[in-house]
C-alpha cells in the first residue's frame, strides 16, 4: 500500500502543476482553460524534437520547449480569448476545448501518434520511497510544484498580482487607474502557458508520452484538483493535486485490487470530491465567497 501512496504522491504533483495553471487563469480571467494540458504537450514535443531529434543540448530543449509553450499561450490569448472576451463563458470554454484538440491534431500530423521517451533531466536509478521506485525526475517534479505554488501565491500579493486581481474583478475600474487589460491578459496567459510547459517538460521523461498525453490523461484530474483546492486558491491547487493523485492510487489498491471494484481510481476521486464539496463547498483552501 505504501508504494501506491508514494506513486500517487508523485502522480499528484503533475495534476497539481496543471491545476496551478488552471487556477491562475480562472482567478485572473474567470475562464476554464481546457487548453492548459496542451501547453505541456507542445513544450514536451518541441523539447523532444530539439534534444532527441536535432541532438541539441538539454538546456536548449528546455528553453525551446518553454518558449514554444509561452508563444502558444500568447497566440491563444490574442487569437481566441481576446476576440471572445465578451462572449458567454460556454463559448469560451468550447473554444478552448477546440484549441486543445486542434493542437493535438497538429502534433499528430507533425510528429506521428507514436509513443516517445524523453531523456530525464537528471539520470539516476529509482529511490525506494515507501516501497515504490521513485525516479530523481519525480522528486524534482514535486519540488518544482511546491515552489511554483508558493511563488504564485506570493505573486498575487505583489502590485502586479493585485493588478491582475483588480482587472479580473472590474476591468473598467482597473483601466481607470492605469492597468491595461490586454497587458494583464498577456501576462496571465503567458504565465499559465509557462507553468503548463514546465509540467509537460517535467512529466514527459517520467514515462512515455504520445500526442495529447497531458490533455487526455491529466487534464480531468487536474480540474478535479483545482476544484478540490477551491478553484481560486493556488496552494489549494497544490494540495488538491496531491490529494487526487494519492486517492486515485489508493483507490486502485483498495477498491480495485482488494475489493475488485471496477473503475476504482475514478470512484475514489469522485468520493473525495463529493465529500469535500459537501462539507466545504468552497473547496479545501478556497475563500468563503
Amino acid at each position, binding site marked *: 500500500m505504501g*508504494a*501506491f501512496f*508514494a*506513486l*500517487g504522491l508523485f*502522480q499528484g504533483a503533475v495534476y497539481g502543476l496543471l491545476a496551478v495553471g488552471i487556477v491562475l487563469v480562472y482567478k485572473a480571467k474567470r475562464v476554464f482553460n481546457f487548453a492548459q494540458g496542451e501547453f505541456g504537450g507542445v513544450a514536451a514535443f518541441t523539447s523532444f524534437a530539439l534534444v532527441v531529434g536535432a541532438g541539441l543540448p538539454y538546456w536548449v530543449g528546455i528553453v525551446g520547449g518553454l518558449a514554444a509553450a509561452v508563444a502558444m499561450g500568447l497566440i491563444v490569448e490574442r487569437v481566441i480569448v481576446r476576440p471572445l472576451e465578451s462572449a458567454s463563458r460556454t463559448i469560451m470554454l468550447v473554444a478552448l476545448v477546440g484549441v486543445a484538440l486542434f493542437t493535438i491534431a497538429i502534433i*499528430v500530423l507533425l510528429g*506521428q*501518434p*507514436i*509513443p*516517445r*521517451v524523453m531523456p530525464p533531466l537528471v539520470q539516476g*536509478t*529509482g*529511490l*525506494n*520511497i515507501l*516501497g*515504490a*521506485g*521513485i525516479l530523481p525526475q519525480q522528486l524534482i517534479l514535486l519540488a518544482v510544484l511546491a515552489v511554483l505554488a508558493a511563488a504564485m501565491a506570493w505573486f498575487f500579493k505583489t502590485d502586479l498580482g493585485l493588478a491582475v486581481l483588480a482587472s479580473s474583478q472590474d476591468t473598467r475600474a482597473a483601466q481607470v487607474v492605469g492597468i491595461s487589460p490586454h497587458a494583464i491578459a498577456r501576462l496571465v496567459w503567458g504565465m499559465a502557458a509557462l507553468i503548463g510547459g514546465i509540467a509537460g517538460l517535467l512529466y514527459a521523461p*517520467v*514515462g*512515455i508520452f*504520445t*500526442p495529447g498525453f497531458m490533455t487526455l*490523461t491529466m487534464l480531468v484530474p487536474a480540474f478535479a484538483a483545482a476544484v478540490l483546492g477551491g478553484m481560486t486558491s493556488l496552494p489549494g491547487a497544490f494540495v488538491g493535486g496531491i490529494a487526487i493523485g494519492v486517492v*486515485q*492510487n489508493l483507490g*486502485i*489498491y483498495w477498491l*480495485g*485490487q482488494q475489493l*475488485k471494484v*471496477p*473503475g*476504482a*481510481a*475514478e470512484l475514489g476521486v469522485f468520493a473525495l470530491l463529493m465529500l469535500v464539496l459537501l462539507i466545504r463547498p468552497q473547496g479545501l483552501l478556497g475563500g468563503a465567497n
Partner: protein
Amino acid sequence: MTRKRTTLALLAAALLILPACGQYDGVHDEFEAAGGENPGLGGEDATGTEGTADGTDGTGTTGTDDGNTDEDAASGGGGNDNGDAGNGDTTGVTADTITIGIHAPLTGAAPLKQESFETGKDLYWQYGNGGGPVEIHGRTVETVFADDQYRPSTARQVCQTMAEEQKAFALIGAGGTDQIQACAQYAAGENVPYLSTGVTETGMGSLDTYFAASMTYKQQVPILADYIKNELGVTDASKVAAVVTNTPNFDDAADGFTDAFDGAEVFRPDKNERGSSAAGNLCTGTVKNYDVVFVLTSPTFYLEMAAASGCRPQYVGVGVSMGLDQVASTGCSAASSTEGARFFNPTPAFADANEYDPDFLAAADAAGITPDDVTWMMWGQSKVLHQMLDKAGEDLDRGAFLDAVAGSSFSTGVFPDLNYKNGPFGATQVSVLRNVCDGGGHYETDFAFVNSF
C-alpha cells in the same frame, strides 16, 4: 373522428399492399434479364461454381500465382458451416479487381505508424508476384484503409463504411482486440468475410464470416505457461504475476493463465488506469516481487508500467501490437526497461524476415520503400488472404469465399499454418520474439512457428 382516422390508415395500408399483390407475371424475370439482382431472395443462379451448401466440394483446387502455396495449403477441408455457397453477393468484385478493406489503430492507445500502413497495405498486392502485381484468377487486389482510433465504436463505423460505401469484398483487422471484435460482429451481421490476427474468443466463435489468422489469446496462454516453466525455468507460481486489462475480452486469457499457473497473482487494471500505477505491484523499491510478469494490456500501458517500475522483471505476453518494434524501441529508450521481454507473435521478427520470405524484401526493393515490421505483418496477412481468395475460385462471391475457407488449410511461411476444420480459430503455431536493446531496440526471433514447449 377515431373511426375516420382508422379508415384512412387502412386505406393507406391497402394502397401499399395492393401494388405488390398485383404484379404482372414475368416482371421479376425481366428485372433479372436486365441485370438486376436480389441477393436477399436468392434464385436459380444463387449457387457458385465451387462449393455446395453441404460442403462436399470444399476441396482446394488451385495453387497461388506466386507459387507460395504448398501441397498442404491446397488441401481442402470438408466444412461448410455457412451454407450460402455462391450466394451471388459479389460486392467489391469486378472482372478485374477485388477490393479489400483494412482497419487498424493509427491513433489511440496502440498507435501504429501511418506510413507503414500506407506503404504496407498494398505492398504484397502490387509487388508480391516477383516485383509485379499479384493476380488471382485474373483479378488484382485493391485496398481501402481506415483508422479505427483504437475505439470499438469507430471500428464498427469504419468497417460499415468500407463494406457499404467503398464496397470492400472482405475486411481485415490488423490489431486491437475490442476493435476487431466490434468489426467482426458487424461483418457477421452483413455476411462480409472478416479476417484478423487472433485475439479473444469471446463472442467470436459463433460468427460465420470470421477467421482468425493467428492463434487466439486463449490458445496461446497454455503454451505461454509451458514456455515460462520449461524455457524460462520458473515453476513457482508465487514468482509469477499477470497484469491483464480489465475487459471481458481478456477474461478467457486471464482464466487460462491462472488454470496453468494456479496461485499466480493476477492484477486487472481498468482500461483508463495509468501503467505507472500498476508499477506499484511489481516491485518493492528496486527489488522485484515477481520473476515473470505476463502482460496483456495496451502497449502504452505496458511501456508506462515498465518505465515506472523500479525493478526489471521478465515480461512475457501474447498478442500482436506488443510484438511491434516500435514498442521494443520505446521500451529500450526508457532506460532499457523492456529489454529481454518475450512476446508471442503471429510472425517471426521483422529483423529475420529475409530468412522466412526473401520475396518480402525483394518486393520492398521493387516498391522503393523502407520496410518495417508493420509492412511485414501486413505482407503475411495479405498472403493468407491471397490463398483464401484463390481457393474461392474464379466465380468469386462472398458465399463461395466463406465456403472455400471453412474447413480448409493454408500455409504461408510468414503467418502460422492455418486449419479451419474445427472452426474459425485455425492457427496452430506461434513465434517467440525477444526485445533486444542493441542498435536502438527491436525484436529478434527466439522461436519460429512452434506449437509447444
